[in-house]
C-alpha cells in the first residue's frame, strides 16, 4: 500500500476549507501551517487569473527529511506516510533544511518539528484526512496509488496524458506521492512567482521573525526570557493596534 494525494487545481476555488479543517483537526498553533492554500495572480491587469495551490508535505518515497533526521523522529509508516514522532524530535531543524518543499515547521508550543501526516491517526481509524472531508468540490483526492482500481490511480491514469499530472520539483528525485492536476510552472515553482512585500491581500509579511519558541535555547531558559511575541502581524492587526492606541490616548481602558 502506498498512500498518495492528488489535488485537481482546476477544481480548487481557494476557499481554504481544507486549511481550516487541518488546523482544527491537528490543533496546529498560530503562525504554523501543515497545509496552506497559496493565491498566485498571473498576467497583467485586466487579463489576470487567480490560481490556488494547496501545499502540504509530499510524503516522498525518497524523503530527505527522513534521511537527515538524527533520531528517526521522521520515519515511514507501512502505508507510505512519512510520519513524525514529536516525543523523540530534538528540534535540530535538519529536516527543515532538507525538505525541498518547505513543508516542515517548528511547532512553537512543543518546540519540535511538525508537518502534515496525511492525518495518519484518522486513516488508522478508517477515516479520510480532514482536508479531504472538508473540500466542497472534491479537489482533494486521496488513496492508494499502488492499487490500480483506486480513485486516485484512475484519476492519475485519466489525466496523465499531455503532462496533465505534475509533482513539485521532480529534479530533486524525492519521488513525491503528492500530485497535481492543472498546475503549471507558475503555480508549482516558487521561483516562478514574486513575493512582493506589502502587496499581499491579508498579511504584510513574507518572513516569520521567529521559528518556534524565540527563547528556546538553554541559555534563555536559565536567564528566564519567557515567551516572546511573534511579529507575524497582519494589516488588520496594525489597524486594531492603531485603534487601541487611539482609544488609550483618549483615556479608554
Amino acid at each position, binding site marked *: 500500500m502506498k498512500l498518495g494525494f492528488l489535488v485537481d487545481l482546476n477544481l480548487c476555488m481557494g476557499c481554504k476549507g481544507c486549511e481550516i479543517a487541518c488546523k482544527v483537526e491537528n490543533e496546529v498553533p498560530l503562525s504554523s501551517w501543515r497545509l496552506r492554500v497559496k493565491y498566485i495572480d498571473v498576467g497583467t491587469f485586466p487579463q489576470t487569473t487567480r490560481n490556488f495551490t494547496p501545499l502540504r508535505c509530499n510524503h516522498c518515497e525518497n524523503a530527505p527529511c527522513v534521511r537527515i533526521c538524527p533520531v528517526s523522529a521522521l520515519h515511514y509508516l507501512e502505508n507510505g506516510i512519512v510520519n513524525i514522532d514529536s516525543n523523540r524530535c530534538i*528540534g535540530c531543524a535538519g529536516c527543515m533544511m532538507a525538505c525541498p518543499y518547505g513543508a516542515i515547521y517548528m511547532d512553537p508550543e512543543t518546540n519540535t518539528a511538525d508537518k502534515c501526516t496525511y492525518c495518519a491517526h484518522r486513516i488508522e481509524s478508517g477515516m479520510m484526512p480532514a482536508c479531504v472531508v472538508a473540500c466542497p468540490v472534491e479537489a482533494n483526492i486521496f488513496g492508494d496509488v499502488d492499487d490500480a482500481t483506486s480513485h486516485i490511480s484512475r484519476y492519475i491514469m485519466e489525466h496523465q496524458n499531455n503532462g496533465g499530472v505534475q509533482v513539485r520539483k521532480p529534479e530533486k528525485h524525492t519521488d513525491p506521492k503528492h500530485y497535481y492536476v492543472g498546475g503549471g510552472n507558475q503555480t508549482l515553482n516558487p521561483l516562478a512567482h514574486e513575493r512582493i512585500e506589502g502587496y499581499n491581500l491579508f498579511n504584510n509579511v513574507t518572513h516569520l521573525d521567529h521559528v518556534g519558541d524565540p527563547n528556546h535555547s538553554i541559555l534563555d531558559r536559565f536567564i528566564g526570557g519567557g515567551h516572546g511575541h511573534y511579529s507575524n502581524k497582519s494589516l488588520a492587526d496594525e489597524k486594531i493596534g492603531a485603534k487601541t492606541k487611539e482609544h488609550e490616548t483618549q483615556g479608554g481602558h
Partner: protein
Amino acid sequence: MVEHTIEATKAVVTLDAAIPGIIWGWMITLNMWAKSIGTGVILIGAFLLYRHNKETMPNLRWLMPLISFVALNVFLLFTLVDLHQPLRMINIFLHPHWSSAITVGAWMASLFTGLITLLALIGGMNEHQDFQRHCKVANWARSNNELYEKIFPYVVFLAIPVTLYTAVIMAQSSARELWQAPTEMMQMLLAAFLAGSATLIFIADDWKVEARKDLALVLAVSTALGFMMYMGEYFFSYKSAEAEETLKYIHSGGAYSGEFWMAMIFGFLAPFFLAVSSIKEDNKTTLRFAAIIALVGLYLAKDVWLKIPQLLPLS
C-alpha cells in the same frame, strides 16, 4: 500600482502564509567556526610536529590540545543551545539514525572531544608538575605521559572526518541548492587549515623562526585557496535556478553582499598578503594581525554562506 510594475510573464503571490526566515543562524555559524579551530589546530599541529623538532615548539604539546578542547566545547555548547529540545540531545546516542550525517558527526565529535580531553589532561599536567599535586587524576595523567604519543595519531586521523562531516550535513540539506556542491568538502578542510594556523600563530612567539614561517605559509595557502573557491562559486554557480537565485543576495548588493566582500577582502586577501610578507620577514605583529582578520573573515564568510540559502521561498 502593482499591476503596472509586474511583467506579464511573471506571477505574483497575493495571499500566503508567512514563510520561515533564517532557521540556522549565528549559533550554527559559530558552531562551524569553532569546530574549524578545534580540528584545525590538531591538523596543523601534527604538520608542525612532523616538520620540526618538538623541542623548538615547547608549548605546542600542551597548548594545542587545550585550545582544541576549548574550541570543541564552544562548538558542542552551541550545537546543544541551538536545539529546540536541548535535553533530548541524548536521543542521538540512544536512538541513533545512522543515515544522518548529524548522527555520525555527533558520535565522531564526541569521541574526538573525549580523546582531546585526555591529551589536554596529559599534556597540561606534565607541563605543570606542581599543579594539583595530590589530585589522583592529575597524578594518573603524569604517570601515563607516553599515552599522549600513542593516542595522537588516532586523534589526527579522526580530526579529518570531524572537520568534513558538516559538509555532508549540508549535502543532505537538499532544500538548499547552494550547499549541494563537492567544493563544500574542500571549503571545510581549508577552513580548518586557516583557523588552525591562525590560532597557533598566537602561541608561536617563542618558537623557532622556521616553524612560524610554516604557519604563515599554511595561512597564506589556505586563504588563497579559500578565496579562489569562493570566487569559483561566485562566478560559476549557475548550476541550478535555485543556486542562481540564492547568489543574487550577493550579486545584487545589500547586507549579505557587503558581508561577503568584507570577508573576501579583509578575511582572505589581506591575510594572504600579510602572511606572505611574514614568510619573507619574520614579523610577529604582522602575522598576528593577519591571523586575527583571517579568523574574523572566516566567520563572516561562513555566516553568509549559511544564511542566504535560507532566504529563498521553498514553496
